[in-house]
C-alpha cells in the first residue's frame, strides 16, 4: 500500500517499501504506469482481432457469395462451408467486431491506457487514489476480454444480434444460433467489463479531484485530464443502466420473465410471454449507448488537443471554451439517446424533442473544431507521427460530424436509419476519430511508457496508409447507404436494384485490406521500438506538461523527491519574452506575467 498511502503527502520522500518480484511488477502490478501498458497491449490485441474480423466479412461484401480459401482456412468448415461465409456467421462476426471495437478497444483500451498513464503524471500525483482498485479494474477488463473471445468458440457461435443486442433476437435462442450460449457469455463478459469500467472510472474521478499537486488548479489541468474526467463521469452514470438492461435480459432469457417480450411465436411455438416491450430495452441500451459514443470520443479529443498544441508550438486556442464544450457535450449526451429510436413507433413528439437536443450538440462540437483550426493557424508545426494522427482526428471528427446533422433530423432518419449511411457516419466520427487519436496518443507518449522512441519513418507510412484507407473505406459507404442498402446485410444480391453497387463494395474491401496491412507496420514499429528503439530523452517533444518532468526510467511514485509545484497553465508555447518556445508548468510566473489559464482578464 506504500504508494497510495503517501500519494498526497507531497513532500515525503518515496522509498519503495517492498521488494518486487516478477509477478508484482509485471502481472499484478499496482503501479499506474504498468497498468496503463497492460491496458494498451490488451486493447491492441483486441483491436487486431476486431480488425481481422472486419477484413474477413468485408471479403464477403466485396465478392458476394464467392469462395475464399482464406475464409475456409481461418474460419473452418462450420463457419465458412466451401470457403463461403455463412449468413448467420456473418452476423456473428459483425456483432463481435462491433462489440470488441466499441467496448474493448475504444473504451477499455483507450480510456484504460491514457487515463492510467496520464492522470497521475499530468496532475502531479504519486499514483492513482487506489492502486489496488486500479489493478482490479485491469484484471476485470482482462477477464471480460478472455470471455468475449472464448464465446467465439462455443456451440452455435458468439452473440449475433448486433452489438446493440436488441431483444427478442437476443432473448430467444431459437431466433438465431448465436443467441444461445454465445449470448450468455456476451452478457457475462459485459457485466464484468462494466464492473471494470466502474471501478476504473471512480478511481479516475477521485484521483483527479483529490490528488492534484500544489498549484494544479482545475483551470490549469491539461485538456486530456478534463476530457478523461468528464469521460469517467459519463461512464459511471451510464454503464449501470446498461448493467440493469443486461440483467433484465438475463431474467428474460433464463428465468421466464417478460420485461422485453410480448405476444411472440417462434418456429410455430407460441411463447408464454406478455406485457413486455422490446422498446424498453432500446431506451435503456441507448441511455448508455449514446454517452458511450462520447466515452469513446472525448479522450480522443483530449489527446488531440494536447498533441496539436504541443506540435503547433502554440497554446490551444480557447482553453476555457474547450472545457465548457467538453462539459456541454457531456451533459447533452445524456438527453439525446432517442435519436437511435425515431422509427421504433415512439411518439413523434418525443422524436421531435430528441432531434432538438441532438442538434444542440453540434454547437459545442463546432466550437471545438474551430478552436483546433485556430490553434494551427500561425503555428510553427512539427509533424511528428502523433501530430499527423491528431490532425487526422480533427478531419474525421468534422467529416463524420456533419453527417450527424443529417441523421439527427428525424424526418431524414426515416430513410437513412440502419443503412450504410449510418455505418459510414459512426465509423468516421467515432471509430476513425478515436482510432487515429489513440495512435496519436501512442506515438506521443510511447517515450513515457516504454522509455524508448518509436521510428518516425514507419510512423509516417503508417499514418498515410491508415488515413487514406479510413476515407477509402468509409467515404463510399455514404453512397452505398444513399442507394438504400441496409446494414447487417450478408449480401445484396437478393435485390437487383443494388447490383450497381457491387463494384463500389469491392473498392471498399480493397481499402479495408490496405488499412489492415498498414496496421502490421505499426505492430512491427511498436514491438521493434520496445526492444530496440532509441532511448528516449526526458522531454522529447519539448512539452509543458508535468509528465515530462519525471525521470525517463519508471520509478514508483513518479518523481524523485518532492512532487512538482505548478505555477501556470499547460499551454505556454511560444510565449513572447520567453527564451524558449515552451515553458513547463513548473516554471514560476515572472514578475507581472499573467497565467493565461487562470483567467481571461483582458
Amino acid at each position, binding site marked *: 500500500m506504500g504508494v497510495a498511502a503517501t500519494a498526497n503527502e507531497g513532500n515525503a520522500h518515496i522509498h519503495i517499501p517492498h521488494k518486487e518480484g516478477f509477478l508484482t511488477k509485471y502481472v499484478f502490478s499496482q503501479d499506474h504506469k504498468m497498468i496503463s501498458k497492460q491496458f494498451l497491449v490488451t486493447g491492441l490485441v483486441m483491436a487486431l482481432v476486431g480488425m481481422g474480423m472486419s477484413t474477413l466479412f468485408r471479403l464477403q461484401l466485396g465478392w458476394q457469395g464467392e469462395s475464399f480459401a482464406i475464409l475456409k482456412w481461418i474460419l473452418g468448415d462450420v463457419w465458412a462451408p466451401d470457403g463461403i461465409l455463412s449468413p448467420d456467421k456473418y452476423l456473428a462476426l459483425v456483432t463481435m467486431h462491433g462489440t470488441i471495437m466499441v467496448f474493448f478497444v475504444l473504451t477499455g483500451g483507450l480510456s484504460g491506457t491514457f487515463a492510467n498513464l496520464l492522470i497521475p503524471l499530468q496532475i502531479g500525483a504519486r499514483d492513482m487514489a487506489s492502486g489496488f482498485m486500479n489493478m482490479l479494474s485491469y484484471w476485470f477488463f482482462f477477464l471480460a476480454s478472455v470471455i468475449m473471445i472464448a464465446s467465439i468458440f462455443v456451440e452455435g457461435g458468439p452473440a449475433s444480434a448486433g452489438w446493440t443486442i436488441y431483444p427478442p433476437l437476443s432473448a430467444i435462442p431459437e431466433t438465431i444460433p448465436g443467441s444461445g450460449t454465445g449470448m450468455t457469455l456476451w452478457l457475462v463478459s459485459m457485466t464484468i467489463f462494466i464492473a471494470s469500467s466502474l471501478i476504473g472510472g471512480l478511481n479516475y474521478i477521485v484521483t483527479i479531484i483529490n490528488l492534484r499537486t500544489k498549484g494544479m488548479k482545475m483551470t490549469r489541468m491539461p485538456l486530456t485530464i478534463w476530457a478523461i474526467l468528464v469521460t469517467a463521469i459519463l461512464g459511471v452514470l451510464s454503464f449501470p443502466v446498461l448493467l440493469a438492461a443486461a440483467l433484465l435480459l438475463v431474467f428474460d432469457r433464463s428465468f421466464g420473465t417478460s420485461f422485453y417480450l*410480448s405476444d411472440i411465436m417462434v418456429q410455430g411455438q407460441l411463447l408464454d410471454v406478455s406485457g413486455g416491450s422490446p422498446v424498453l430495452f432500446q431506451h435503456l441500451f441507448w441511455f448508455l449507448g449514446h454517452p458511450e459514443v462520447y466515452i469513446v470520443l472525448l479522450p480522443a479529443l483530449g489527446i488531440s488537443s494536447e498533441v496539436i498544441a504541443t506540435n503547433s508550438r502554440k497554446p490551444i486556442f480557447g482553453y476555457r471554451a474547450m472545457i465548457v464544450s467538453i462539459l456541454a457535450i457531456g451533459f447533452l449526451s445524456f438527453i439525446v439517446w432517442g435519436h437511435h429510436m425515431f422509427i421504433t413507433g415512439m411518439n413523434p413528439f418525443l422524436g421531435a424533442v430528441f432531434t432538438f437536443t441532438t442538434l444542440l450538440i453540434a454547437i459545442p462540437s463546432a466550437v471545438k473544431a474551430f478552436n483546433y483550426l485556430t490553434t494551427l493557424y500561425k503555428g510553427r508545426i512539427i509533424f511528428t507521427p502523433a501530430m499527423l494522427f491528431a490532425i487526422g482526428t480533427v478531419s474525421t471528427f468534422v467529416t463524420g460530424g456533419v453527417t450527424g446533422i443529417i441523421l439527427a433530423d428525424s424526418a431524414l432518419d426515416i430513410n437513412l436509419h440502419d443503412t450504410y449511411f449510418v455505418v459510414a457516419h459512426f465509423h468516421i466520427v467515432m471509430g476513425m476519430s478515436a482510432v487515429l487519436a489513440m495512435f496519436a496518443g501512442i506515438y506521443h507518449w510511447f517515450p513515457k511508457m516504454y522509455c524508448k522512441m518509436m521510428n518516425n519513418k514507419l510512423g509516417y507510412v503508417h499514418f498515410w496508409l491508415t488515413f487514406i484507407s479510413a476515407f477509402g473505406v468509409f467515404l463510399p459507404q455514404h453512397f452505398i447507404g444513399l442507394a438504400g442498402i441496409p446494414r447487417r446485410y450478408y449480401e445484396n444480391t437478393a435485390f437487383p436494384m443494388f447490383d450497381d453497387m457491387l463494384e463500389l463494395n469491392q473498392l471498399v474491401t480493397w481499402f479495408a485490406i490496405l488499412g489492415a496491412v498498414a496496421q502490421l507496420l505499426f505492430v512491427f514499429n511498436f514491438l521493434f521500438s520496445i526492444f530496440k528503439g532509441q532511448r528516449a530523452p526526458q522531454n522529447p517533444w519539448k512539452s509543458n506538461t508535468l509528465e515530462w518532468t519525471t525521470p525517463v526510467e519508471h520509478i514508483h511514485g513518479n518523481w524523485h523527491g518532492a512532487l512538482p509545484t505548478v505555477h501556470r497553465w499547460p499551454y505556454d508555447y511560444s510565449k513572447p519574452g520567453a527564451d524558449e518556445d515552451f515553458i513547463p508548468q513548473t516554471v514560476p510566473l515572472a514578475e507581472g506575467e499573467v497565467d493565461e489559464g487562470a483567467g481571461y482578464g483582458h
Partner: protein
Amino acid sequence: MITFLIYAVIFLGVAALVRLAMVYQASKELRGEREENVSASENSWNAILFIVFMIALYAGYIYLIFEYSDALLPKAASAHGFKEGSIYSIDALMNINLVVVNIVFVVINTLLFFFAFKYVREKRETAEFFPHNNKLELFWTIIPSIFLAFIIIFGLTIWNNVMDADKEVLAADGSVVEPVVIELYARQFDWHARYAGADGELGMANVRYIEGSNQTGVMKNDPNSLDDIIVKSEFHLPVNVPVKFKIRSQDVIHSAYMPHFRAQMNAVPGMNTQFTFVPTITTNEMRQDPKVMRKYEKINLIRSEKGEDQVEFDYILLCNKICGASHYNMQMKIVVESQEDFDKWLSSKKTFGDSEGLTTKSKKVDNKLAENLEIN
C-alpha cells in the same frame, strides 16, 4: 509445403525489416540526429502530403458523385417525400442539408489541411501566441446556432407532417379520398400484407390465433376479418390515395423499409406501429424516369455479364432491422398503379373469409376474448 513456404517468407520478411530498422537507427545515431526529432525534409514532405491528400480526397469524392448519382435512390415516389415546387418534403430537406453539410465539410477540411501545409515549421520563424479571443469564439458559437435553429424548425415541420397518420387527400370534387388500410405483417423471414377490404376495417389479430392456414393470426370471430385480403410476395397500391400501414411482427423486431417512398417503421412484437403515405408515381411511370432507366441499363449490363436474367424497376419493401440469419433476404415487391388496375387486382384475390371457409357474416366478436387479449 506451400504453407511452410508462406511462413518462411513471412519470417524472412520480418527478419529483414528488423535488420533494416536497426541499420537505419545506427546510422542515425552516428549522424548525431538525436536532438531534432523530425528532420526538415520529413516535415516539409508531410506538409505537402496534406495538400496532395486533400486534392485526392476531393477528386475521389467528386468522381463518386458523378459516377454514382444515378445509382442512388431516385426522387421520392410519395407525397411527403417529394413535392413539385414545394420545400416541404423530405427530399427538399435532404438537399438543403446536403448543400450545407458539404460546404462545412469542404471548408473545414480545406482550412485544416491548408493550415497544416502553410504553418509548417520550415516556413516559420516563430509561432504566434494567440491563446483566445472572446469575440471570435462568440462568433462561431452563434453562427452554427442560427443555422441549427433553422434546420431544427424546418426539419420538425416536415417531421410532424410526415408522421401524421391521418393524412388527407382531396379528390378533384373536393371530397376526402378514402384511405387504403393495409397491415404489414413481419416474421422470420417473410412479409404478408393484409388489406382491410370493403369495410375499410382490419379484423383483429394476435399471434395466439395462428393455426393452420391462418398464418398471420387473424381473429375469425371478428366480422371485420371476413373481407380482409391477405397476400404474400407482392402487394399493390393505388396511386394518389393515402395508404395507412399498420405494422406488426410475430417474433423479433423487423423494420418495414420502403426506400422509394422515404418510408420506414419498425415492426415490433407485442406492439402496433403505423405509417401513412401517399404514393404519387406508378411503377410504370417510374420505369420511364430517365434516371431510373439509366440505372437499370447499367444494372442489366452487369447482370448480362454475369449471365443473370434482365430486370426491370420495381418498388420494394425490405426488412431493415437485424432479425436473424436471412435478414438480408426478406422482401416484398410493391406495385403502384391506377385505381382501376388496383381494384381489378384486389378483387381477383380471395378474402380471408373465403379461404378459411367462414361463410356467414353473422358471427359476433367475442368481446371478452378481445378485451383480454389486448387485441392488435
